[in-house]
């Protein structure tokens, strides 16, 4: 009985020490992960600034006109087409309404 009590006592001491050591170890791990999180967040923010700068309308317009040779649509080159829905239904109605600018050369689709 006495021996058993001693063994249990020693075990308890071991568990206590092990727990303390583990708490310290986990503490270090938490710190490491936190540092990693901060570094990743920093990188994310830097990338977000970069994305925003690259997506600036001024830059896109410059690349489009100077690099790709695009020009803004001239008068009458923009056609607004309003259709009832994006996805065509299975049984389309025989006649659809579309709106087109009058002065455009759209004889092809005019009835």
């Amino acid at each position, binding site marked *: 009985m006495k021996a058993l009590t001693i063994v249990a006592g020693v075990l308890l001491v071991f568990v206590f020490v092990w727990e303390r050591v583990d708490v*310290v170890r*986990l*503490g*270090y791990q*938490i*710190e490491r992960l*936190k540092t990693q999180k*901060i570094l990743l967040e*920093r990188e994310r*923010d*830097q990338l*977000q*600034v*970069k994305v*925003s*700068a690259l*997506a*600036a*309308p*001024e830059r896109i*317009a410059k690349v489009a006109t100077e690099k790709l040779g695009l020009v*803004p*649509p001239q*008068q*009458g080159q*923009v056609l*607004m087409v*309003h259709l009832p829905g994006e996805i065509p239904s299975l049984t*389309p*109605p*025989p*006649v*659809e*309404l*579309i*709106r*087109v*600018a*009058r*002065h455009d050369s759209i004889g092809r*689709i*005019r*009835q």
Partner: protein
Amino acid sequence: MTAGPSRGRRYVMLILLLCGFCIVLFRLVTLQVLQAAELTAKADRQHQKTVSFEGARGMVSDRHGKVLAMNVEVPSVFGVPTSLESPSTVARHLSPVLHIRRDELEKKLRQDKSFVWLARKVEPEQGRRLQQLSLNGIGVVMEGRRFYPKGPLLAHVLGFSGMDGQGLEGLERLYDLHLQGEKRVTVLQRDALGRTVFPRDVAEQTPTPGHALTLTVDEVIQYIAEKELDEAVTHSRAKSGTIIVMDPQTGAILAMAVSPRFDPNVVTALTPDRWRNRALTDTYEPGSTMKAMVAAAALEENVMTPGSMVFGENGQMVVANTTIHDHDKLGWMTFSEVIQKSSNIGAAKTGMALGDQRLYRYLQAFGFGQRTEIDLPGEVRGLLKAPKEWGRRSLASISMGQEVGVTPLQMVSAVAALANGGVMMKPYVVSEVRDQKGHVLKEVLPQVRRRVVSPETARAVTTMLEGVVTNGTGTKAAIPGFRVAGKTGTAQKVDSRTGAYSSTQFVGSFVGYVPAESPRLAMIVVLDEPQGESWGGVVAAPVFRRVGEQVLTYLGVSREDTVKIALAMKDH
């Protein structure tokens, strides 16, 4: 067995032990009692580290969530001069990395201080290179730096913040309390190697970042306005220019462009003159654009109808011993034509028919002489004198937009009231304030200030203003496929040297809205001192057209001349 010598030895041993014990006791009292406070503090300094944390400054984005301003952690470089062996060698290594002159760095490093900033908020790459150099006595800490990724876009509205993260101008200043991150000081435990052991309270470590602002501004519309304004200012060689685009139904500002522009990322080299938001800090005499409001007052008060006949006095009329001129020698014309041809004499007669009290009351109701209370700093009231201060010519002058000082924002707000059926809306630029979790803390809803004129009057004025664009002075503002209502304005500036109206310095402007039947945009274009041609109808009206055309296309507003045609769908 004799006890003598052994007893003697025992005494010696006892005395030695007592002495030793006394020494230990003395040392113990010294450490634990006499030096206790000092040593505890020293120990704390060694194994505790006090760190001040500051939450990141809130983000600012446009109405579609596009980032306009945000904080990023970047390295700041400091030196510890007292621990340097050779300041000149260190300065030689640092100079090419920090792009700072060697002698300048060396001067800082030779100071008798334990801490000096060498360069704050440098590029991340510079920080990395410094860490590779690993110089003794040189350290790097991370600090939040404000970035404006779109450069000069919307700079006059956004403003900028200072080195320590405090808002200095524009929205950054007005919403500083919201944008600022929380400041918190935490004590961390350190081990023998100087690494931080988990803090006493983990939750204490993360200070909350500042609130994020969502604006009513659309970055694409803003870009269109800035691009066209810059071109117009360059082309007309004007001193400066302003464009404001507003949603007349709500008062939401869609764009506010001021030229010349500046980049809020690099403001140190600029003077305050450059970052002043002229759209609300500068007043000008509006000239003929004021006639739109005078016409609305006259129609509302039944002093005139669009068909009322007015005599143009063949281009000259004497009022209070001064002569008022018209551009053309006009005879009899309808009231609509007075506005269409922008007749000064017609407008003066309308003002006289209204009388000083009524005219003053309407101009006040349209918001002149008072702040619009937009959520931007630095707004001025403008100038609208009370009738008792008016001279004999004032009634006529004010009716044609002289003797009053308005800001472009006041003028566009007044015209927006004509566009939306007669209601003054409060202009605003921030639509939402959110916390770091995305919860809406404050939502700004359109705010009606007052009704100025009836919907019928607003409609009648709209028809008259459409005439300005179809047949009058503002034909260059016409946008094909849309009905445009607007008014041109050309005002002589007062020469600061002579105090009289200058014959060479003008302000050319155009203010209007489109589509006239259900306006989506109210816009003002103001060009200050354009050289050569300075008529509002020549310099400002085309800018209105170019911006309006692009913005309407961007917003997907259907052209009036679109027709519905039947298209037979082929069976597939």
